[in-house]
């Protein structure tokens, strides 16, 4: 053993002390080597590093005996016990705790990004920006602190485990809670965040109170000789009501600051809401939150009128249609809305929505096309030549359907068909079950069935001439 080894051993033994304290002792012993000619002589006259450390640690009130006992080899049973405790208790709790900082950091990002969705004019713009940035900063600070705490806790858990297993690791010693923000920066950011939040709150109050003054206006127009109706609006419920008067009346309930055009060319009428690029962000703002459900389009049509084309384009709103007859094309295009349509006669029927359920009842048509995602599709009492149904992650249910060609496409969900009388049918789902039966007429023969599911079961009991299963 030489001087270097002696000192490094001593340093290791004293590692539980603070660095400054440790260095003082090392300095004493370093100096000690200068008083004699050879290092060997000094080492021979000194006690072993372990022994010296024990005396020093005792002087610091550290019970060294405990340390040595802890580093003894643990029994197999206790190791298994600790592992079970880790997996069943500590690990789940720690993981759920860990989700806190991550969700906070996510909120921080979201509130920053979300700002852009709210920019609509000066007041909402200012309040959204300040609120968003303030929120972002505050959640960032809390998130980083929480993350640090989790790391600190994680180290402790690791140390506790390693200690329990009798493994000594230098990284697990001297665990301290480190703040990754310097203190002044932390203070500046906090104050900034709180100021922004306060400003944002004040502006939002102003913005909301000024919004309250925005009037909801109603416009009514009467049209004659109407065959085609084209509605293109946003965030407004669309209702069609049958009346006994001979004219078509469109009631448009809208916000004061909205702009729109009514147009009649020949026998076609168009209601179009104008929105430019900036109004595009308008589609979910304070004003809409306050007047949700108040805005709508009500179309009154004569009882005996047969329209040629009816095209409705809206978003995030309900569309209620029943007892309608359209000779050519009926198209409904909406998003995030559930649709419930019944008693409709048309030639071409196109429904397009996303995240909404679609329920069709008593429909007579030449072709039906339903396209949605994440919404359940239910067809009840339908007569149509071609039926095309497309969704994902949702069930498809058919009951009493007469058709020539049916195409069904979903994934991850079940397809349940009952009394579907068609010549050809294509069913495609990936992880769902396919069930097809015709209890009201068990002798009906389907020409061609093509059924495809990768992980689901088949339950096809109808008679058929050709069946392809995949």
């Amino acid at each position: 053993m030489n001087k270097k080894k002696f000192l490094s051993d001593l340093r290791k033994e004293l590692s539980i002390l603070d660095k400054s304290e440790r260095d003082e002792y090392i300095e004493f012993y370093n100096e000690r080597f200068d008083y004699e000619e050879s290092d060997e002589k000094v080492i021979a006259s000194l006690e072993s590093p372990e022994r010296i450390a024990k005396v020093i640690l005792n002087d610091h009130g550290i019970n060294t005996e405990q340390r040595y006992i802890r580093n003894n080899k643990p029994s197999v049973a206790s190791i298994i016990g600790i592992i079970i405790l880790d997996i069943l208790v500590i690990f789940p709790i720690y993981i759920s705790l860990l989700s806190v900082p991550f969700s906070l950091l996510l909120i921080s990002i979201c509130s920053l990004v979300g700002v852009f969705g709210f920019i609509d004019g000066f007041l909402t713009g200012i309040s959204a920006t300040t609120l968003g940035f303030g929120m972002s900063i505050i959640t960032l600070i809390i998130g980083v602190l929480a993350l640090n705490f989790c790391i600190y806790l994680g180290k402790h858990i690791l140390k506790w485990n390693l200690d329990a297993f009798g493994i000594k690791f230098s990284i697990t010693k001297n665990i301290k809670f480190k703040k990754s923000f310097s203190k002044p920066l932390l203070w500046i950011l906090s104050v900034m965040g709180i100021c922004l939040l306060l400003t944002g709150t004040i502006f939002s109050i102003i913005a909301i109170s000024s919004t309250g003054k925005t009037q909801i206006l109603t416009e009514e127009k009467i049209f004659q000789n109407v065959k085609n109706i084209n509605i293109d609006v946003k965030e407004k419920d669309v209702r069609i009501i049958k009346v006994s008067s001979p004219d078509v009346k469109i009631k448009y309930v809208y916000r004061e600051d909205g702009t729109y055009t009514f147009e009649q060319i020949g026998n076609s009428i168009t209601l179009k809401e104008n929105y430019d690029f900036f109004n595009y962000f308008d589609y979910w703002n304070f004003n809409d939150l306050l007047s949700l459900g108040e805005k709508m389009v009500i179309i009154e049509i004569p009882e005996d009128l047969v329209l040629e084309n009816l095209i409705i384009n809206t978003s995030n709103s309900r569309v209620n249609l029943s007892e309608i007859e359209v000779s050519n094309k009926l198209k409904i295009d909406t998003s995030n809305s559930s649709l419930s349509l019944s008693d409709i006669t048309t030639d071409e029927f196109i429904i397009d929505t996303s995240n909404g359920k679609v329920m069709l009842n008593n429909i007579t048509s030449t072709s039906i096309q339903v396209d949605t995602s994440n919404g359940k599709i239910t067809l009840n009492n339908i007569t149509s030549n071609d039926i095309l149904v497309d969704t994902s992650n949702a069930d498809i249910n058919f009951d009493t359907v007469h058709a020539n060609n049916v195409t069904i496409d979903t994934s991850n969900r079940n397809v349940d068909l009952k009394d579907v009388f068609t010549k050809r049918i294509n069913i495609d789902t990936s992880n769902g079950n396919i069930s097809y039966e015709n209890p009201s007429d068990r002798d009906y023969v389907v020409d061609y069935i093509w059924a495809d599911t990768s992980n689901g079961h088949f339950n096809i009991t109808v008679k058929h001439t050709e069946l392809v299963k995949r």
Partner: protein
Amino acid sequence: MSQQLKKGVLEMCVLTLLSNKDSYGYEIFQEVNSILTISESTIYPILRRFVKSYYCETYVVVANEGKPPRKYFKLTNLGISRCTSIVEEYRKFNDKIDIMLNKYWKEEQYE
């Protein structure tokens, strides 16, 4: 001499030694050791504690012949008054123990 007894008086011994003259760590050990026979490792924590509680100051003396500098310990006023009070306390304590021993300890009994 028992370790327990030594431990109790070691601080006082070092203080009195330093009240006589400034000294460095190893020399302090050697001098105390020549009378009391102590382990070297007990001296350094005591010296460190003295500095911490302002009984001692340190200064560095550069030795000649190319030898490295030595860290000398010097008692402060606080250290001196601490030394006076602890010695006085010890004397009183010692007298009382003597009374105790004189009164109850009859050496002849066990001879």
